[in-house]
């Protein structure tokens, strides 16, 4: 799975949960400052992401954009794969 695939799936998850049109969810949009996603919702969404990718929990810090979440997901996949 490459980053574009992960981003596409993240966009689907976020768009469905927030009812945002997908095109708003650009990789670099700041989720809280630009898209108005509060921290409770973000925690809930990260749980969903973790479940979806069957991975260890993405930390809540440092994942303020979808791009950064995708990076975290890929890093987690690498760690899991190398075990």
């Amino acid at each position, binding site marked *: 799975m490459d980053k574009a695939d992960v981003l596409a799936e993240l966009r689907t998850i976020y768009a469905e*949960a*927030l*009812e*945002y*049109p997908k095109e*708003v969810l650009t990789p670099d949009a700041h989720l*809280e*400052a*630009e*898209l*108005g*996603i*509060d*921290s409770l*919702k973000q925690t809930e969404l990260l749980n969903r992401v973790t479940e979806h990718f069957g991975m260890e929990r993405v930390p809540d810090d440092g994942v303020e954009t979808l791009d950064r979440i995708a990076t975290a997901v890929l890093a987690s996949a690498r760690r899991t794969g190398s075990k």
Partner: protein
Amino acid sequence: MTAVAVVGMGVALPGASTPDELWDLLRSGRSVLSAADADPAGLAGLHDPDPAVADRSYNRVYGPLSDLRPHPRLRAETDVGDAPPGLTTYWLRHCLLQALDTTTVADRDRCAFAIGYGVSGSINAEQAFLVEAVAQGVGAYDADAGQIPDLVRRALAGTYPFAGPEPHVFLPHEVGRRAAAGLLPPQTEIVTIDTACSASLYAVQAAISALSTGTADVVFCGGACNVTPSEYVMLSQVGLVSANDQLRSFDVAGTGSLWSEGAAVVALKTLDRAVADGDEVLGVIAGLGTSSDGRGREVLAPDSRGQALAIRRSLESAGVAAGSVDWILAHAIGVPAGDAVEFAALREAADSATDCLVTVNKPQFGHTSWASGLLSLVHVLLALRNETVPAQRRFTRTPESYRQEATRLRIPVTDAPWPRTADRPRIAGVNSFGFGGTNVHAVVTDTPRVGGFARRSGTGEIAVVGWGAHLPGAPTATEVLDQLRRAEWHVPPGFGESYPLPDPVQLRMPPIAARNLDRTQLMLIQSMLQLAGEHGEVWAPFTDTTGVFVGHHGVPGAFGPVVLRINRDLIAGALAGVTDATAAPAVDRFLKSLQALAADPDETVGGLLPNFIASRATKRFDLRGMAMVVDQGIDSALGAVHLAMRALHTRELDMALVGGVNGNSGPELRAILGAPFRSPAVDLAEGAFTLALARPDTAAEHGLPILARLRAGQDPHDGPATVRCGPSAGRSYLGGDGALAILSAVATGGTVRVEPYDPAIQPAGILVRV
């Protein structure tokens, strides 16, 4: 420069009916929260220890104010049945009387009374609203309602004892008027300001604007609130309430906040006047700074950048270096995440080379929300007098994440001496931060040699450089002007049951969040978007110094269903007492409708309370000037325009977005409003209006076309045409009426006097020149 002196103070807090008793409380280390066995507000009825239970609070500890020993004059009024109705009104009057005891007011003085107050902080208003909502709701299920509302009111009287027979007397503008009746001159300007928890220190901002523009000679600032069960539940549902019976600020063991009831009033005048009058100077306000967080964090989350901005602005306004501040009395309500943000703001704004004391009074006082900023100011004045900084109580150590050891911020756990000296001023800072990122910081000192405020004329013209309206049917600006000119409406009065959600991209908010906001919050933003569409983003060059002032009157529409839902078991219990056979079917159907109300998982208190109307707009447009909601009854938006014009005159702001909004046209609101709205001839209408205001020189400098010029006050020779604020062409937009009146004047053209609806309201009007 003019120094502003505090010459009077009054307080009401559990266990402290006078400033001296407040000092005793501070020295004793007692907490008003620990003795909360009494429960006059009835929190026990909505309590469930399980935090997962919806519509219940997991705690019930608070600081009820039930032991007030009223000022002798209020005691005498009470004895003969002349005291004003409503707890917060009574407490404000008590505090105002105390402040007046040491404040000389001459016959010719122009007085003002600015009060930090929110309708949701009054248990009387909340219960009056609940009773009417149920009475109207049950009545709606019976074709010839006749007796039913009265039967319902009687059945609910035991459960909601604070409701009273006349709901409108509990609305904010009436609270201020009744608290001051017979104590301040009849021409006193009375205005209530809601910025949530920072509101009463924002009243000091209003006071300084009024004094430095020469608009008033003596200004009384107040703040008061109850703890209301429904709001306690709303705060509990977002996890802000303490998990135990303690409030620990900045402490590693803190778990959340606990709320208390209270009130405070201070009297301010220029130092020259204080000296001339022979009034004792209790302290000097050397500087004051305000800010909004703007974009960055969501609406319930504080932002250290916004808080540090208010502190820096305040120090700049006082001409004081951070290193000269001896002590900061912080806001820190005991919620771990919020306290950490405030500590970060202090770290950012403080001097890194000089020790500065930091304390918080909330572990003892509880969080008195609307009153808290002024209670902190009084706390500092008492510390100046007694030459002691009281210790912070219930404090062991800060969490490691604060990195306190890398700062010079010191939290004293024993009282610290603070001696008066001839050569060095004593300087303290007071933090007050509200929900939505409404920040204010005041610098207080013992000598007029520090700081002060530039005197500015308050009578100059202010330019209207843009306006926008948002109404059902989405009329264009031209269509709105045309309807105003003809004084006939072609747009429907309301948006109907369900408000059409704006485009989420324009709103920058997910639909799941937007749908949980009271429509006023969205409507105001829409009116600003129309303004931007017609005139451009006129605020763009000054986002740091653009403020938002919103006239709003009444209770937001979204508040009703939530409060009814939270209270439904209590209501059902009370209505079991309605035995009248003809009423039973309507009662039954109404209760079923309450049972059908379900909480949306994304509902929060941030969607419900009026103060968020202004702060939501600062988030959307990334504005960092002050933001407030103003309630002056039907004249609310005119009050907002006056406050905005002064903040422009003093140059605290370069632009003000001033609006008025009403989004509630329901019968339950009509039932609690005053006389004009009892008549079915007046429709309650929904709409939002925003005017962009700037000083004419600023407008010229930035090439902003001037659409009209506004000036405070009125001169009878100033042209024949008048527009009166208030219901027109059969409708009232309540809090929006004042903005609409100004737009009507703009539509008329020439020179027009806009007069307040209520002839007793001061200032008496606004001159509009096109």
